[in-house]
């Protein structure tokens, strides 16, 4: 006999605990039979465990709800306690804004209502409370419309309950539920349509605004209405309580006490402007949209299901991903074994990819979804690999329109995925990219995937993996060896600089200290050869000594970092230093990035110097053809951000220490005072000890205070530096774009920008007639992608693609660091986003920040 724990945990699964049965009714009976016996002596363990199961395996909630209904017939007190605990947890979740808990507990309440544990009217009261809070938020006087995200979240939670209990509610409390539906409709009519185009996977090229896509809440409302008109019939939600209806009606329904929605945020004086934008950003961080649908597959391929079923399966999958991360086996087996009577492989792939690519950030690091996709390919070897390949092909097809951040994630995912499956891919399908210009996004995609494959493996191995399309070797990175200009191996002429390099090399081999080398440089090299030679010799020689591995590099930087610091004390010189690093590792993008990253880590170069180097002409030229400069830029900003986050974390834990140190000091003081007042009763010794204690506690308190102040000062400085970083970044972006973007009158939208070259090309290239663009109304192929192998043309010109890619990164950086940027928005508005800035640039920044577009004065 299996334990009650494993029966609860495994209910509904095909597993040995339940023998051969896969019938929910039998599972519930078996489980109930065991639990009712155990209740007597283990109820204190059963209650929290049952709740935990319901919270963490929400796709099984109907089974747990029915079980609770049956237990209610046996032991009303136990279930009463369970309802009370749920109430307390729910109130906590509301107070702390724990979205997942709110959503899941509402589903649990709904199924308990179905099992007669709760009165339907209690559930309606919960709905009404949340709905009323949502509507108040939208009220400019009593609420604060910038917090619409919270209202939307509450309303989506109400709607999400209906597939689990809509038919019961309509049957038992028709008027009340109708009233809720009317309220929701009213809410929908006054809320703002969510048009955060900055978060869509594909560059929104429908800028004419002709068709407005439904936002998440409108979409869910639509699905619920279809469900309602179908008589609330839904395939993807098991309804096991129906099998026990005759028994369950005898149960006593419990009270679910009132709940309180959290306080409304302070009203704002105006519903636009910076303050509104900042608060809206915060609200959306706290109440994020859980999913954004990624429609990869054509409708003919995806599974045919009711609109609501799609929503439910997505919910199931997202919850499995959320709660079972770190449990690979269970995660994969729940993903493939959801309690639904239809196949959902394509939907599963779309859902996982939609998370992998979710903007601004997925709930987990992309590598988690990489792992899940691998595990599903192994769990469903006959079906899933093909679906994944289909997804890759479909995304590749549309890659030119895919958001820049998503392109980067896709490259990292795909290369990693292939490295786990022997690098097998039908590359011949993509050999045509060689005929495309070097800036065509499909070609860049292939090139960057190969680059990452080589990093995860090695050059010859990847070369071998493309044997079906040997010509693609052209896109492989160089073999990665250093470009050591003082190499003496190939019998090149030995110059004076060669001799200096050899001398430096000998000094390092002879274990001279950094100080000795600095004096050598300053006394004998610099006076005779000048600074440029010093820089070249030092950088090339030291990097060459550190070239054998990551650890070699670190060791050289740890021992001789001061040499770099001495010769490159300011930004100008640091920029030249970085350029030399880039020259030494010009054949190896990974080592370039790593070396620059480590030098920033040792504070030999500043993030501002890195930004300047990234925007130096040689790099700017590569913006549309290579990830190389972007990787360096991402690292530099990421590292800066990580430092700030570390400081924030340290400060928040120091603040806690301050509180406890103050309490400890106060307590010691109180003890001392108390003892002193009773001085007559004690002799000297204990008093002395108490005094010492009090002093020590006070010292402790002072010292924690001091470290907190020190950290806060560091943070303040870091934030100033951060402001300078983002100002510099966006100033540089604005400048290079201003030089290259066509006049605003010629390119008001990205679509117009794309078609500029196409117009010119139709004049000189006859074969492009297939792709001719009528740029007023018709778009070629919807996107600029290549429909098939017969149209090996990419008709966006080089300059236009440069602008498109760069604008894509402008948006991506703004989006990823939106919270940091919002903190400095006034300065950014004043210094960078001025009147003269190009509207397309401004639009990209605004869109990345999800800043309401009507704030863009120039349109």
């Amino acid at each position, binding site marked *: 006999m299996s334990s009650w724990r494993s029966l609860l*945990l495994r209910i509904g699964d095909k597993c040995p605990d339940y023998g051969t049965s896969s019938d929910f009714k039998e599972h519930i009976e078996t489980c109930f039979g065991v639990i009712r016996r155990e209740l007597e002596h283990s109820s204190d363990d059963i209650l929290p465990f049952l709740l*935990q*199961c319901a919270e*963490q*395996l929400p796709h099984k909630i109907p089974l747990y709800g029915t079980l609770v209904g049956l237990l209610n017939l046996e032991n009303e007190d136990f279930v009463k306690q369970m309802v009370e605990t749920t109430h307390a947890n729910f109130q906590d979740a509301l107070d702390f804004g724990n979205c997942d808990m709110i959503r899941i507990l509402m589903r649990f309440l709904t199924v308990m209502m179905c099992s007669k544990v709760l009165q339907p009217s209690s559930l309606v009261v919960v709905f009404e409370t949340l709905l009323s809070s949502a509507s108040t938020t939208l009220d400019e006087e009593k609420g604060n419309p910038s917090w619409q995200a919270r209202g939307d979240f509450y309303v989506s939670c109400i709607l999400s309950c209906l597939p689990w209990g809509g038919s019961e509610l309509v049957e038992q409390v028709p008027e009340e539920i109708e009233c809720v539906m009317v309220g929701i409709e009213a809410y929908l009519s006054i809320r703002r349509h969510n048009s955060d185009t900055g978060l869509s996977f594909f560059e929104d090229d429908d800028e004419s605004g002709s068709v407005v896509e439904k936002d998440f809440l409108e979409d869910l409302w639509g699905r619920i209405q279809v469900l309602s008109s179908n008589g609330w019939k839904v395939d993807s939600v098991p309804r096991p309580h129906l099998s026990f209806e005759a028994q369950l009606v005898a149960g006593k329904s419990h009270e679910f006490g009132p709940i309180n929605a959290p306080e409304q945020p302070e009203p704002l004086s105006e519903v636009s402007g910076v303050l509104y934008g900042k608060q809206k950003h915060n609200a959306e961080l706290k109440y994020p949209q859980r999913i954004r649908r990624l429609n990869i597959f054509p409708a003919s391929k995806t599974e045919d299901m009711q609109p609501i079923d799609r929503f439910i399966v997505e919910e199931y999958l997202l919850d499995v991903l959320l*709660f*079972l*991360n*770190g*449990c*690979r086996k*269970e995660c994969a087996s729940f993903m493939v074994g959801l309690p639904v009577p239809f196949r959902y492989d394509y939907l599963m792939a779309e859902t996982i990819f939609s998370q992998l690519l979710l903007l601004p950030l997925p709930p*987990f*690091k*992309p*590598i*988690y979804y*990489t*792992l899940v996709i*691998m595990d599903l390919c192994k769990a469903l070897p006959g079906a899933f690999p093909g679906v994944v390949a289909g997804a890759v092909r479909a995304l590749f097809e549309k890659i030119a329109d895919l958001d820049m951040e998503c392109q980067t994630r896709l490259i*990292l995912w795909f290369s*990693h995925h292939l*490295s*786990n499956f*022997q*690098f*097998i891919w039908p590359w011949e399908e993509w050999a045509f990219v060689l005929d495309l210009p070097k800036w065509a996004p499909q070609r860049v995609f292939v090139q960057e995937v190969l680059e*990452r494959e080589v*990093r*995860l*493996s*090695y*050059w*010859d191995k990847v070369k071998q*993996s493309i044997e079906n399309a040997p010509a693609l070797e052209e896109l492989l990175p160089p*073999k*990665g*060896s*250093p470009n050591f200009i003082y190499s003496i191996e190939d019998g090149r002429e030995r110059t004076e600089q060669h001799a200096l390099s050899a001398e430096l090399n000998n000094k390092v*081999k002879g274990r001279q200290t950094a100080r000795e080398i600095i004096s050598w440089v300053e006394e004998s090299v610099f006076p005779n050869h000048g600074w440029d030679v010093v820089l070249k010799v030092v950088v090339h020689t030291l990097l060459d*000594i*550190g*070239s*054998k*591995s*990551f*650890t*070699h590099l*670190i*060791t*050289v930087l*740890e*021992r001789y970092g001061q040499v770099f610091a001495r010769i490159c004390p300011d930004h100008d010189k640091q920029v030249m230093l970085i350029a030399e690093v880039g020259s030494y590792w010009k054949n190896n993008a*990974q*080592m370039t990035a*790593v070396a620059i990253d480590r030098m920033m880590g040792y504070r030999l170069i500043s993030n501002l110097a890195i930004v300047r180097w990234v925007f130096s002409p040689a790099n700017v030229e590569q913006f549309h053809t290579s990830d190389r400069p972007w990787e360096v830029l991402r690292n530099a900003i*990421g*590292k800066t951000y*990580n430092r700030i986050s*570390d400081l924030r974390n340290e400060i928040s834990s120091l603040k806690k220490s301050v509180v406890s140190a103050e309490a400890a000091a106060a307590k010691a003081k109180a003890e001392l005072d108390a003892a002193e007042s009773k001085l007559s009763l004690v002799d000297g010794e204990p008093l002395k000890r108490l005094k010492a204690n009090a002093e020590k506690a006070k010292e402790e308190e002072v010292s924690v205070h001091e470290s907190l102040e020190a950290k806060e000062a560091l943070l303040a400085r870091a934030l100033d530096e951060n402001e300078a970083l983002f100002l510099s970044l966006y100033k540089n972006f604005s400048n290079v774009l201003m030089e290259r973007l066509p006049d605003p009158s010629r390119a008001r939208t990205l679509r117009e920008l794309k078609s500029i070259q196409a117009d010119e090309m139709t004049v000189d290239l006859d074969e492009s007639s297939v792709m001719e663009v009528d740029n007023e109304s018709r778009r070629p192929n919807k996107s600029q992608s290549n429909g098939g192998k017969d149209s090996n043309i990419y008709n966006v010109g080089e300059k236009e693609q440069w602008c498109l890619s760069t604008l894509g990164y402008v948006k991506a950086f703004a989006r990823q660091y939106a919270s940091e940027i919002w903190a400095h928005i006034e300065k950014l508005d004043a210094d960078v986003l001025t009147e003269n800035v190009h509207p397309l640039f401004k639009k990209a920044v605004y869109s990345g920040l999800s800043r309401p577009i009507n704030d863009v004065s120039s349109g």
Partner: protein
Amino acid sequence: MASLFKDLTKLSAYRDRRFPGNQEEFEQALHTSTTVYIGNMSFYTTEEQVYELFSRAGEIKKITMGLDKNSKTPCGFCFVLYYSREDTEDAMKFISGTILDDRPIRVDFDWGFQEGRQWGRGRSGGQVRDEYRTDYDPGRGGYGKLVQQELEAQRQLVDYGTGSLGSFPPVMPPPHYGRRGGHNQGGSHPQSRDHHHRKRHREDDRPPRESSKRTLDHASRRNFDPNSRPEKNPRFRESANSDDEEEDDGKQRP
């Protein structure tokens, strides 16, 4: 992470016998550590490959390759040190069991690198698991050390002369180097050696002279090994334990 299917307090089944403390302190170290141990690596995997893969879980502070204590060449394990605990946990959760260089690697929390722990603990210099293996694993130097010695002895009996140990051809033909197949199919031995060799010496175009070159490479690297320069890095100031003690680094891990 879900607590339903995993005992979150139990982080590793492996107990390092050289940990200087009791079980409780050991577990405490694992719970706060930002170091992961990576096992079942190919001898040919480079730090840069490790960096590319493991930096996908977060910013890396340091990588320490495990080395054969005799030959000073990689012997199939390493330590990766992160800056943050969260990233460390993600590396363990999301990378363990996946493939690096055609091999499923194992990632575990580690109590923290100390000088001396980079050396293999097997009698022959590498990891203990490579002493007793009887399978042929081209990514880890062919047969286990004991089997190699036996083969060596037999070979001398029939007077084939003394070849270098690692270069014995397998008795069983190696699996065909197809693009489909198991994870461990590194290809026929000489071929894969050649590939990996080039990978490790990518900056070197001279014809390979394997074992001596590799030793040189890592001997020179030792000069710059931060671990061997304790005065530069306070983290490693404790002096090394003697490493002649036979202890399992692989066998005790599940």
